[in-house]
């Protein structure tokens, strides 16, 4: 049976190791924070914060304390604040060990598209291009196929790229794949999903 959103998040959390500084994207990646257990993980919010805490209790929202998704959040005892130039300095400079991000498309060479659908609503890349270019390891969490059943793991991306050859690992509802020389390599499949099923749902070359 394919993983649901929470199972995907839980699987992504296994990628994180004690002491890591991590940036989580919007959507399923945000849920990863619920599954880090007692690992010592520090979350970066690229609008200028290390040590992001959970949502505030009702009535304790602070307009000066939001995450990169503009949601109200809280601080922790380890928290530090800084400006946007410093924040992206640490991202671009490779100080963030990993980013866990959503995607529209991933290509077998690690190309990532997750910021724009031409002709449709154009919102902008925000910090996504900086993150994929800068962090140590880029982990994509997304459904294996789109609403129409088409593979989101492609030979080549069709949408405008967020980054070229930047993805290291892909966690989908069907399993986990690594970007390696020549294509994608299956690391594991979701419980009850066969490698054949995963092959069938994937346009990208599996090696």
């Amino acid at each position, binding site marked *: 049976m394919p993983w649901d959103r929470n199972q995907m998040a839980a699987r992504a959390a296994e990628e994180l190791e004690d002491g890591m500084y991590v940036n989580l994207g919007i959507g399923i990646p945000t849920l990863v924070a619920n599954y880090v257990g007692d690992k010592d993980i520090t979350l970066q919010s690229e609008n200028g914060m290390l040590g992001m805490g959970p*949502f505030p209790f009702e009535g304790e929202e602070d307009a000066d304390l939001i995450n990169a998704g503009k949601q109200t959040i809280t601080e922790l005892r380890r928290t530090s604040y800084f400006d946007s130039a410093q924040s992206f*300095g640490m991202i671009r400079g490779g100080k963030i060990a990993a980013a866990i991000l959503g995607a529209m498309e991933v290509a077998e060479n690690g190309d990532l598209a997750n910021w724009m659908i031409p002709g449709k609503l154009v919102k*902008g890349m925000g910090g996504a291009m900086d993150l994929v*270019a800068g962090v140590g390891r880029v982990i994509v969490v997304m459904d294996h196929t789109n609403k129409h059943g088409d593979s989101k793991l492609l030979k080549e991306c069709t949408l405008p790229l967020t980054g070229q050859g930047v993805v290291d690992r892909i966690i989908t509802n069907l399993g986990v794949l690594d970007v390696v020389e020549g294509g994608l390599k299956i690391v594991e499949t979701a419980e009850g999903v066969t490698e054949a099923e995963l092959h069938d749902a994937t346009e990208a070359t599996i090696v």
Partner: protein
Amino acid sequence: MKKIYDTASSALDGVLQDGMLIAAGGFGLCGIPELLLEAIKDAGTKDLTFASNNAGVDDFGIGILLQTRQVKKMISSYVGENAEFMRQYLSGELELEFNPQGTLAERMRAGGCGIPGFYTKTGVGTVIAEGKEHKDFDGETYILERGIFADLSIVKAWKADETGNLVFRKTARNFNPPAAMCGKVCVAEVEEIVPLGSLDPDSIHLPGIYVHRLIQGTHEKRIEQRTVRKKETA
């Protein structure tokens, strides 16, 4: 040299000009110079270019200047949450230059630091890199991005002293320091002007040298996404 002005309008007196480039602080609606934006609306200055990470929402932040058609061009990383923006952009009334968020922040800081250009990996191989100089360093390819030199900076801080030393609060710091640094003139609005000597000199986020004019005012500080969790009952 008095830096303190009574109102946002008086603080902008003589520094506004049609067609100018304004760098604005803020991320989303957090830490935006809301009073100065209102005053620019009242002044009716036209054909403005804004370097600002976001464009506000329809009725708050830079959004109010989109409503009045005072903005010709935005240099931003993310402009969702703004229907009027989208309409003007898709109809060709508004120019839009997308910058990756970190590139935008660094371009502002670079301008403020006298750096006309720097190389970054961000955006290599994407539309962002088109038409930009590419250069290899140690076997990796980077693109040249330019410093932003703005005519005017408008920023919002938490506290200031009379010399313009600024302190920001939590994530409302965001783009404010780099935006402040890159302007020929910088006007700051703050929640409180405190007596000289009451800010810790080790904890000043932006030294007064960057701040030319200063107002104190009351801020709405609107929240864009109010997210909360339930208190667990004991």
